[in-house]
């Protein structure tokens, strides 16, 4: 096994990793705020809003992500009448699937964070004259994110690995190029290289979240 061979197979694989990273960044950037929105909705005073959020979370967490991705990429265009308007670029459709799916998980994580906050925090904020909204933004949310941080870290690492599901909807990413190389060269080195690339990505994430946890230790 030569260095040249490694460079040769790594180039397309790193390109694939670029797709993986793009998907990851898009999915995180959109699903975290969307998830928080669902958390707020699930606690709404309006039964209809809360019911919608609960149902949404139930469906997204209760069905396989692969099924959802296939549905967005290949199912939606089959809908009568409106289907033809729902043909998306497959990468876009996959992003949509990931965002909608992970939003449900983040919603649950944030809900857990909210539940962990003592009632006394709301009361102190109220007695100090903060409005409900001010209390949520200045007192509750920062604590909720702090509590949720380890679970968010965990979920993010899962997301990196879940990007491999792009393979199922034929969007070329890291795994796709890995298999191309394996099949072409009849050699397992690409698997190892792919593993190392995934590990580097998850290591970077782990370090990033360690840093955040330290920064927001509040001690």
């Amino acid at each position, binding site marked *: 096994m030569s260095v040249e061979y490694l460079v040769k197979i790594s180039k397309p694989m790193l390109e694939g990793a670029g797709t993986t990273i793009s998907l990851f960044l898009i999915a995180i950037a959109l699903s975290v705020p969307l998830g928080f929105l669902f958390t707020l909705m699930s606690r709404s005073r309006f039964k209809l809003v809360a019911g919608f959020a609960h149902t949404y979370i139930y469906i997204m967490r209760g069905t396989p992500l692969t099924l959802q991705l296939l549905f967005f990429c290949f199912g939606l265009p089959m809908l009568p009448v409106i289907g033809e308007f729902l043909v998306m670029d497959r990468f876009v459709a996959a992003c949509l699937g990931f965002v909608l799916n992970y939003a449900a998980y983040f919603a649950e994580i944030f809900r857990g964070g909210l539940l962990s906050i*003592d009632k*006394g*925090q709301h*009361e*102190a904020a*109220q*007695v*100090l*004259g*903060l409005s409900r909204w*001010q209390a949520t933004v*200045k*007192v509750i949310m*920062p*604590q909720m994110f*702090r509590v949720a941080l380890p679970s968010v870290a965990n979920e993010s690492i899962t997301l990196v690995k879940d990007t491999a599901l792009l393979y199922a909807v034929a969007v070329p990413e890291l795994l796709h190029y890995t298999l191309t190389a394996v099949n072409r060269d009849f050699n397992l080195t690409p698997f190892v290289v792919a593993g190392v690339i995934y590990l580097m990505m998850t290591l970077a994430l782990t370090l990033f979240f360690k840093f955040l946890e330290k920064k*927001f230790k*509040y*001690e």
Partner: protein
Amino acid sequence: MSIIQVANLKKSFGSLDVLKNVSFEVDKSEVIAVIGPSGSGKSTMLRSLVNLEQINGGSIRIQDQYLVKDGGYASQQQIKAITSGMGMVFQHFNLFPHLTVQGNLELAPRTVQKLTAGEVRRRSQELLGKVGLADKSDAYPARLSGGQKQRVAIARALMLNPAILLFDEPTSALDPELVGEVLRVMKQLAEEQMTMIVVTHEMGFAREVADRVLFMDNGEVVEAGTPEQIFDNPQQERTRTFLNRVVRV
């Protein structure tokens, strides 16, 4: 001149009548100690004054404005204005753990009152000095002892210049050796003519600092009077029974 008037306060949680017919008045600059057995409704009474509990009947009048009149609440806006004249100190401090000591003091004045950062800073430094914690302004609550936390909580409540301070068992969560430092701060506030209602199990404090003592039992104010009247010459059997069970003072 009474600054708080409570008349025929009624409150129930489901079928449990927690406050049955509570009436009392507090004069400006008075220190009231509220004592009584667990579950007698002391916290519920105190919390209804700052609208943390909604009552089912009766009236609460604070600084000549009705928070509730005959069971009917004022408008949201009025409620906000009325309760803004009161500060509250909780048994478990309820400091904001994600903010430093200084951040805890400055959050409300900066979000609610829109004062300049300089004015707020001057006041927070002054109050931290007053409670003896000038050197802790950058510490997070997690790094403080219980006594220090409670003194921060008192300073935080004072930031908004309340006319009335309410304390719900401010020393009950503290190790015995830390009780004194908190009581000292409260005593100083009393000397400075702050109007205070203090729910407490510290009979020594009640006797020494309070102008009047309310004894509550089973959702009623059973007896009220000067510390001498209540502790040395209680008129009601229930008061005597309670005082015999607590430590002699």
